[in-house]
C-alpha cells in the first residue's frame, strides 16, 4: 500500500491543529464551565447547609422561648386566677357584710315601722272602740246598769286586803282627807251613801267625798286619792280587747 508522505504530514498537522483548536474552543471552556458550576453548586449546597443549620438553631431557640413563654404565661395565669379568686372572696365577704348591714338596718327600720304602725293601729283601734263603746254604753245607759256598776265598785272596795286598805288610808290622810269619786254618770244620794258607808267601813272615817261627773271614765266609776285608785270601768276591758286585736293583726302580718 502506498503512503503519500506529504498527505501523512498534512494529516498529522491537521490532527494536531484540531487538538489545539478543540482544546481552545471545546475542552477548556466546557471543563471550565462544568467545574465552575460544580463549585457553585457545592457552594450553594454548603450555603444551604449553613442556612439550614442556622434555621434549625433559630427554630430550636424559638421553640425554647415559646416553651418558656408558655410556662410563664401559665404561671401568670395561675397567679392571676388565684389573686382573682382571693379578690372575689374578699369582695363577696364585703358585699355580704354590706348586705347584712343593709338587711339589719332594713329589718330594724321595718321593725320600727311595724312598731309605729301597730302603735298607731292600737291607738286608732282603741279610739274607735272607745268611741263606739262609749256611744253604745251611753245609748244603753240606764239606772240599772249604773247601779250594777256602783255595786261592782262597792264589791271591789270591800274586797280590798288590809295592806291595800292601809296604803289608801295613808294616802287619804296625806291628801287632806279628801277623796274624789269620778263617774260617767250622776250618782244618786242613796248610792253615794252606800259608797261612803262601804269606804268608811273598809278604810277609815273622817274624810269628805266629792263626786265629779267625768265622761272619760267610760261607763265606770273610780276613786282617786293621792296616787291610789280603786276603779271599775270598761276601759280595762277595752284595753284587753285592743291588746288581743293587735296580737291577731301581728300574727296575720307574719303569716303573710
Amino acid at each position, binding site marked *: *500500500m*502506498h*503512503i*503519500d508522505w*506529504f*498527505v*501523512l504530514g*498534512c*494529516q*498529522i498537522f*491537521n*490532527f*494536531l*491543529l*484540531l*487538538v*489545539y*483548536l*478543540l*482544546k481552545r*474552543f*471545546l*475542552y477548556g*471552556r*466546557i*471543563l*471550565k*464551565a*462544568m467545574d*465552575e*458550576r460544580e463549585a*457553585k*453548586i457545592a457552594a450553594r449546597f454548603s450555603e444551604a447547609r449553613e442556612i439550614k443549620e442556622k434555621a434549625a438553631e433559630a427554630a430550636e431557640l424559638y421553640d425554647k422561648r415559646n416553651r418558656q413563654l408558655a410556662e410563664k404565661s401559665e404561671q401568670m395565669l395561675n397567679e392571676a386566677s388565684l389573686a382573682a379568686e382571693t379578690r372575689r372572696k374578699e369582695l363577696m365577704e364585703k358585699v355580704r357584710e354590706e348586705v347584712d348591714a343593709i338587711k339589719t338596718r332594713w329589718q330594724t327600720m321595718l321593725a320600727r315601722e311595724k312598731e309605729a304602725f301597730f302603735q298607731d293601729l292600737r291607738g286608732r283601734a282603741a279610739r274607735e272602740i272607745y268611741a263606739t263603746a262609749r256611744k253604745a254604753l251611753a245609748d244603753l245607759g240606764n239606772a240599772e246598769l249604773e247601779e250594777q256598776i256602783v255595786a261592782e265598785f262597792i264589791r271591789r272596795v270591800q274586797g280590798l286586803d288590809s295592806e291595800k286598805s292601809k296604803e289608801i288610808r295613808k294616802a287619804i290622810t296625806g291628801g287632806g282627807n279628801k277623796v274624789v269619786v269620778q263617774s260617767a254618770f250622776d250618782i244618786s244620794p242613796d248610792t253615794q251613801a252606800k259608797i261612803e258607808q262601804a269606804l268608811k267601813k273598809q278604810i277609815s272615817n273622817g274624810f269628805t267625798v266629792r263626786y265629779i261627773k267625768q265622761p272619760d271614765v267610760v261607763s265606770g266609776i273610780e276613786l282617786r286619792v293621792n296616787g291610789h285608785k280603786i276603779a271599775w270601768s270598761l276601759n280595762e276591758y277595752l284595753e284587753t280587747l285592743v291588746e288581743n286585736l293587735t296580737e291577731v293583726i301581728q300574727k296575720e302580718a307574719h303569716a303573710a
Partner: protein
Amino acid sequence: MEIVQINQISPDQVIIWSWGFIKINATILYTWLVMAILVVGSWLVTRNLSSEINVSRWQHFLEVVISVIRGEINEMAKKGGDKYIPLIGTLFLFIGLSNILVVVPGFVAPTSSITTTASLAICVFVAVPMYGISQNGLLHYLKEYFQPNFIFFPFHVMGEISRTLALTVRLFGNIMSHEKVVGILLAVTPLLFPIIMQALGLLIGIIQAYIFAILSMVYIASATSAHEEGHKHEELHKAEASQGIAA
C-alpha cells in the same frame, strides 16, 4: 456520484488539486470538513457558555460527551486525567464524527484512508513517551524498556511499533472494508439490506472510535504509571477483547 471508485482502495487516490509534490486529495478535504464541523460547532456552542444551573441543550450535549470522555480517562489515569482530554477526546470525536458522517451520501470517511489512521497512530506513538517522560522523567521511562531485564528491550520496542501498526490497520481495515462491503451490497442486493449494513456501520464506526481512543489512553496510562501494571494489562485485555468482537 461515487467519489471513490469501488476499485480504489483509499480516498487518497482521488486527487482534487496538485502542484508539484503538494496535492489536495479527498482525504485531506474531508478531514478539513470534519475539522470545520467540530471547530465551528464547538465555537458556536461555547461562545456563550453558562456556568449557571440553566444551560442550553447544545451545551448539555457537549457536557455529556466531555463528561463521558473524562470519566473513561479518569477511570484509567486515576489522577490528573484532565490533561489527556485534548488528545484522547479529539481522537474519539474526530474518528467518531468521520465514521458517523459516512451515512451522508457523497461523504467519504477520512478514516478509510490508511494515511489518516497512520497519522493518528503516529501521534499516539509520539504522545505516549512524551507523557511518560513528562510524568516520570526520562530515566525512569527508559528503564521500563529493560524490565524485567535487558533481553526484553527489543520486545518492548517491537511492541511499541506493532501496536502502532495495529492501531493504524485496525481502524483503516474496519472502515475501508465496511465501505467496500456496503458498496458491493448496494450493487447486488435490494434496497433493505444496505440500510441494515449502514446501521451496523454506524455501530462499528463508534466502536472503532472508542477502541482507538481507549487503547491510546491505555498506552499512555501504562507509560505514565508503571506501578500499576496489573491493572493496565487488565484494561488492555478488556479493550482488545472488545476490539476482537467488533472486528
